[in-house]
Structure formats: structure tokens, C-alpha cells
């Protein structure tokens, strides 16, 4: 079984890897590249813990083959902060206690960032539906939704 050579950009860095044809992007990120911030909660696209963006589009990395990443731009949770400067969403999640165990948090942050890039002023309903594919079992979503809305408001004020 020959492995596939893939060249891609991950969090802005030119990255090459070899993967089996059946390896998912999630497998590659976690097992080949050591980017374990992207989590596997289900492997079937039902929980959103593996959310990343590919060419700016939010996807479940468990539902994409690693081989498909050729030439794409991929952003993971590890690419969200700039050095030691956290993204406003990251800061707000800590400040507003929008996480308990933290396993769903990377996926939710990646998804929320993708929302705010498209829609800087989402309604509560829009936030809830955008994040419907990101399961959280600890928080009941309340503080997560509030943190996203609050960050959006802060970012609108700042821009």
C-alpha cells in the first residue's frame, strides 16, 4: 500500500505529509502532524469536535480524506491565537466560563470564528443554528452562546 504525498498549508505554514488513502484529515492532523487540538468525538460528522476550516469553509475533518487536502489552506484551533495573543473568542470563552471539560471547545471556537467572519452581527438564533453541529454535553450551551454574542458585539465595537 503506497502512501500519498500531500502538500498543503496548515495555519499558514507550508506542510507536507504522507498518508494512507483512507486516512481522514483528522487522522493526519492528530497522528501525523501532532495537531491534537482537533478532537475526535464521533468520527461521523455528528459532534463537530473535529471542526477545521478548509479554504475558509467550515468542515468536519473526520469527513474529509487527508489526500483531499492537497493545495488547500487549512486552519485548526492551533492557528487561532497569534502567538501569545488570544483571539477575542478565546479570551471571552475563558472570561465567561463558556467551557467546562473543554473537549468540545476547540471545535466550537473554530466554528464560532467562522460564523463571525461571515456574519459579524448574528442573532441568538443564528448562533444556535450555526453551532448546532457542535455538541457540548457540559454547559447546556448557555454560556457558549452568550460568549459568542458578546465577542461579536466587542468586535463590532472595535472595528
Amino acid at each position, binding site marked *: 500500500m503506497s502512501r500519498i504525498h500531500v502538500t498543503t498549508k496548515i495555519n499558514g505554514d507550508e506542510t507536507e505529509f504522507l498518508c*494512507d488513502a*483512507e486516512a481522514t484529515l483528522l487522522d493526519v492532523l*492528530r497522528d501525523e502532524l501532532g*495537531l*491534537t*487540538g*482537533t*478532537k*475526535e*468525538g*464521533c*468520527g*461521523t460528522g*455528528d*459532534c463537530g*469536535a473535529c471542526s477545521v476550516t478548509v479554504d475558509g469553509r467550515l468542515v468536519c475533518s473526520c469527513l474529509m480524506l487527508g489526500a483531499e487536502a492537497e493545495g488547500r489552506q487549512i486552519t*485548526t*484551533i*492551533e492557528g*487561532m*491565537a497569534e502567538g501569545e495573543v*488570544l483571539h477575542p473568542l*478565546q479570551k471571552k*470563552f*475563558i*472570561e*465567561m*466560563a463558556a*467551557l*467546562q*471539560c*473543554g*473537549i*468540545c*471547545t*476547540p471545535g466550537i*471556537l473554530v466554528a464560532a470564528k467562522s460564523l463571525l467572519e461571515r456574519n459579524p452581527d448574528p442573532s441568538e*438564533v443564528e*448562533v*444556535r*443554528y450555526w*453551532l*448546532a*453541529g*457542535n*455538541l*457540548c*454535553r*457540559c*454547559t*447546556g*450551551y*448557555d*454560556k*457558549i*452562546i*452568550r460568549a459568542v454574542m458578546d465577542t461579536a458585539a466587542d468586535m463590532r465595537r472595535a472595528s
Partner: protein
Amino acid sequence: MALDDSRKTRQFRIVGTRPDRPDGIDKVTGRARFGADMVAPGMLTGRILRSPHAHARIRRIDTSKAEALAGVKAVVTRADFGDVPDHVADIMENCLAGEKALYDGHAVAAVAAISPAVARQALRLIEVDYEVLPHVTDVDEAMKPDAPVLHEGRQQETVPAGMSGNVISRVEFGHGDIEAGLAKADRVVERTYRTAAVHQGYIEPHACLATMTADGQGDLWVCTQGHYMVRNTCAAILGLDQGQLRVTASEIGGGFGGKTTLFLEPVALMLSKKSGRPIKMVMSRSEVFRASGPTASSSIDVRIGMTREGRITAGFAELRFQGGAWPGAPVGVGAMSGFASYDLENVKTVGWDVVTNRPKAAAYRAPGAPMATFAIESAIDELARGFGLDPLEVRLMNGADEGTKSSYGPTYPAIGLKATLEAAKAHPHWTAPLGKNQGRGVACGFWFNFGGDTSVSLSISPDGTVTLTEGNPDIGGSRAAMTMIAAEELGIPYDQVRTVVADTGSLGQNEVTHGSRVTFSVGLATIKAAEAAKKEMCRRAAMVWGIDEDAVEWEDGAARPAGPNAGKFPPMTLKEIAAIASKTGGPIAGHHEVMAEGAGVSFATHMVDVEVDPETGATKILRYTVFQDAGKAVHPSYVEGQFQGGAVQGIGWALNEEYIYGKDGLLQNAGFLDYRIPVASDLPMIDTVILEIPNPGHPYGVRGVGETSIVPPLAAIANAVSAATGVRMTQLPMSPPRVLAAIQTGG
């Protein structure tokens, strides 16, 4: 330990504020290491072969072809473990089947291989000769005399002769005379309620990384609620010395009780022993559903009598719980907690623990209480509404208070039930108008809360910063709470303390993170450890000042001379004392080890508005408010988080979550697609009201808060749906087909 009964209100500096959690940055940047995130050099992949049958005798397992496959380094079956001590025998059997496979997904064999692909292939090469046996998955069916029997000789002495061998034990609680009480009632409600088995639904699947050497030393990295429990249980199963097995708890991606036992760990250690290589095992989501530990399903008969004024004259409930393939359904606790919110003259509960061909139930947030409470709070609501009485007033009239003899025996000290009811009555939610097809429900709930073995160590660094070392995995912000308590006690800033969750080699025994015990127990031990450190620091200051150590007291982060004869010295701060520690006798630390007792019970009242679509039976949660007694909220944001999370798990349980078994005894919905936990768009905000009725058993008054919040929602939502539709719902989940059928047939 001695309990502090003083109820002095204390002014706190840090406790009650909302600082950022210390593990926050790790968890928002993806750096935090969870169970599946660890690697080791030379690591192999471990995989489990699982039974495709609900009940089958294992005649023979032939692993030779798998062993011969290139890249396979070890194959393990039950035979590799030999005899194990009685107290871990059921856990062993659940980790790997012996004579029989007892449920769909029961582990039968395991392999270690150089890649997941090879491991998958190896599993297919293992030949298992099954003799398929008749199975039973329903609790009422399993109690029938002609039901297929799972085990011989497990029935306890409390079970009357002649019952099915699947009936393991019977418990009974209560006092008074039920029949006499019912005779005084103006109306008696008599109904049977049923709840489906549900799963904790933690997002992180079970995972571990095990290393074990031929000389009996082991290392285990594992996502668990209790790594000391993992150590002790694995040691017993594998015949290791506890001290030779070091277990490190990873960050844990949710547990809710489901990670208070073992599934993979002994198998991983054995694979490591046989292969001589580290073994990583990670369950798939479908394995989590099929073969971890969901909670019991139940079938409950209730009889409750009430006068037209609303006084409950007698309450009776008979609870039948199936807890999967081994004894241990949480029916005893269910029987104890169902009527615990009430002050009743005549009350009795009977519980039956029944085994079926399902995975062995593990704990799930207040195990047993939500089901019992669903049945009882539904019946009370039906009576109250039948008389046209205000359901909150009825609960206040009958509610338990300090001095009430509880339904399970003891007399209550100060408790907060009525405070939650009064708060509910005064809240604008209670009087907000409702529209068409909408209904409002309330229900009360109770949980015991636990203490348990606890060890902490608090070390002062030379620069005056402090490390608090504890042994309970941080499942929802407990590092923040412990850091706050340590800083509070020492009188230093929050960010001068760092809290570390240590491995089993670093501290004495710690009970599992369960029973809502951590903030109470670890907090208690942290206070005591800080006191020990303060005492030592006062002694050092006394030495420097040349005065008696009794003449020094600790205040605002510094040692100060106390009393008229102590002399006049400027306060010596923690930093200053730390800086000269090696000159005054060496490093300074405090530690405390205790079997924490005195956890205070906790009560909650939940209020919910729903709208039911009369054409489809779909229920929408419109508004939800939690009123709960926290004793003292150390970090209110995380207390609210517990209230909200418990309420939403309850919403899932009430509306959509259920284990669905086919006639073939196989689980039909082993994934998040058809095991439907609530998603963000299903829900409104979950409002919370924190009541603080101090627990007399804790210096700050802290009560556990984690579990009570899942107890009332099932009944509160059922009461709301019943109000909206005019039809009494008695079976969970209240899925749309069930609600629609009830509306169409009138119940």
C-alpha cells in the same frame, strides 16, 4: 474529622468571585492533553473484538490466525487474566467476557498491532464459536419467571423465593402506614411510569495509553474521573502492587459518572505486558454507546394520596431498574431519594435491582434519582392540578425542612428546599403569560452529595508562589475553585497559586471525582492544608522575631504578632517568609489527608415552559429556570454551569434520548445521529438562581452542586408537556411520536 458547626457568615475576599480558570488558555488553544492526545515511543494500537450477540455462550476463541498476521504483537482474551479477586470480578468480566457474552458489544478479545489497519484486520481473523442464547433487555420482561437468566447464584437474600434469577436484590425504605394514609386522601393517583436507558453522552470517548513491564511496573495515562480507582482496580485485576502502577489522569472530556469505572485499562495493560510495547486504546463512538456504562432504564409504580387542601397523606413507589448484565442498578439510591423532598407521615419505596442483556450501568449524575423523581413528582403534580391547587404551594405545604424525618430515615439538618420553592414563587418566570399550546411545569429534586478519601499538598516556593497538588481530575473548573480556596485561606492573590492534578504517585488515595464531592472534599482538605502551612509560617516568623509561636497569627497573607505581649514587629508576608525558608528550617508545605464526611444534601426546584405542536407532538423548550441551593458558591460561573448542564441533560432525557434495542437484542442507535442529545438550536438560555443555605458540615458552607440539577428536569418537563396538551405523559422519552399518540388517544 471534626465538623465545624458554626454558621458565622464569613466575609470572603476571593471565594464568590469569578476569576479566569487556570487551565483556560490550554483549553481554548487546543494545548490541553486529553485521553487520546498522548503518544509514547514504539506505541501500538489496541483494538477490541466485541460480541455481535446479545447473549451467547462462548464455546471457543481461536486467535491463532490473528496472532500469525504480520504486524500483530499481542492478542488477549479473558484466559490471559486467570482468577481475579471477587470485588473486581464483574469489572473483569465486563472488560473481557469469560464463559458468556452478555450483551451486544461485550468485549471478547483484544489485539495490539502496529497500525489501526492491521489491528482491524486482526480482529476479523479471530474466530469465536458462539452458542447464541435467548436474551432479555426489558426490565419487566426480565423479572418474569420464564425469562432467560443471565447468571446463576447472584440473587441476594433480600429477594423472596421463586423470583427470576435476574432479580438480584430488593430494598425498602420509609415509615408510617401507607394504606392508612391513602385512606385519608381525597384522591389517590396510581400510575406506572417508564424511563428509557440513557447515556452520559460525554464527548470524549474512553482512551488510555498503557505501559507495563515484565517486572510488574506499570504506567497508565487515562481519561477517568478517578485515577486512584483505576490504579487500585487494575492492580487487583492484574495482580500488581498498587504502588508499582502509576496512573496519570489526562484532561477529561466529560464523564458525568460514566468514567467512574473501567472498560479498556486492564486490557491495555495486559496487551502491553504481552507485547512489551506501549498500547494506546481509544474507543469509537459506537463502542462508547454499545459497551460503556449507560444508566438504568426503569419501570415505576406510584400511589400517592392527597387531600383537597393539598396535603400528601401517603406516598408509595415501587421501582424496577435494569442496570445491564451485572448487579448494581442504582435502585437503592432511587428508592431513597424519590420522596426526599417531602415531609411525609406515611411513605414507602421498594426497589428491585434487575439484570438484563445490556451493558453494565455506570453512574450517571445523581444515579437513580432522576427516574424516581420523575415518577413521584409527576404524580404529585397530577394531584395538585386535579384539585386546582398551585403546584408550588402544594410543594411548600409538604416540603421537607430542618427537623423533617426524611423518607429514607435520617432527620434533616438545615436544608434549602423551601428556599428554592420560595425563590421560584417570587421569580417573574412563575407569573409570565403563556400562549396557545404552551404549558408550564415545576418539579423538585434532591441529591445526597458525598465526601470520601481526599489528599492534598500545598507547597510554598522560595519566591512565595504556591502550588496546590490535588488528586481529582478537573472535570468542570475545579482547579479554579481550589486555587480560589487556597488563595483565600493564605490571604494571597489568586494568580499566586497554581493547582496541579497529580498522578497516583504524588499523593495519598483520592476518591473518584463523583458524588458532587470535589469542591466540598478537596476544598475542605485544601483549607486544612493551608492552615498547616500557615501554622508553620507563623512558627518561622516567631523564630525570627524570637517570640512564642502562639503569639503569632496569620492575617491578610502575613504573619503578625498577636496579643499584647507579643511585641511590635512589622507583619512578615508569605513572600518574605518563603524567601528565608531554607535559613529558618527548610521548605514549607502543608498537606492534609482526610476521609471527608459531612457533605450536605442539596435541593433544587426547576421551572420550565414548553410549547407542543399538536399536529406533530414536537416539544419546544421555551424558557427554563433552575433554583438550587449551593450552600456557598465558590466560583458562581461554574456553579451556574453545573445547573445549566444538568438541566439540559435532563431535557435530553425527557424528550429524545433513549437506548433503542431491536427484537434481536442489538443496539440500534449507537451514534450521535440517532442517540439524540440536545443541540444548541433546541434550547433557550437556561436561567439560574443560586441559593446559599450554608452546609453546617463545611467551613464555608459548601454543598455539592453537580448532580442535583439533573434530578428535577424529567418531571418538570413532563408536567409542562402535560399542562400544554392536557394529557398526562408517563413514559420517557416524550418523543414526538409518543406525544402525538397520547394527544390523539387522549392519554
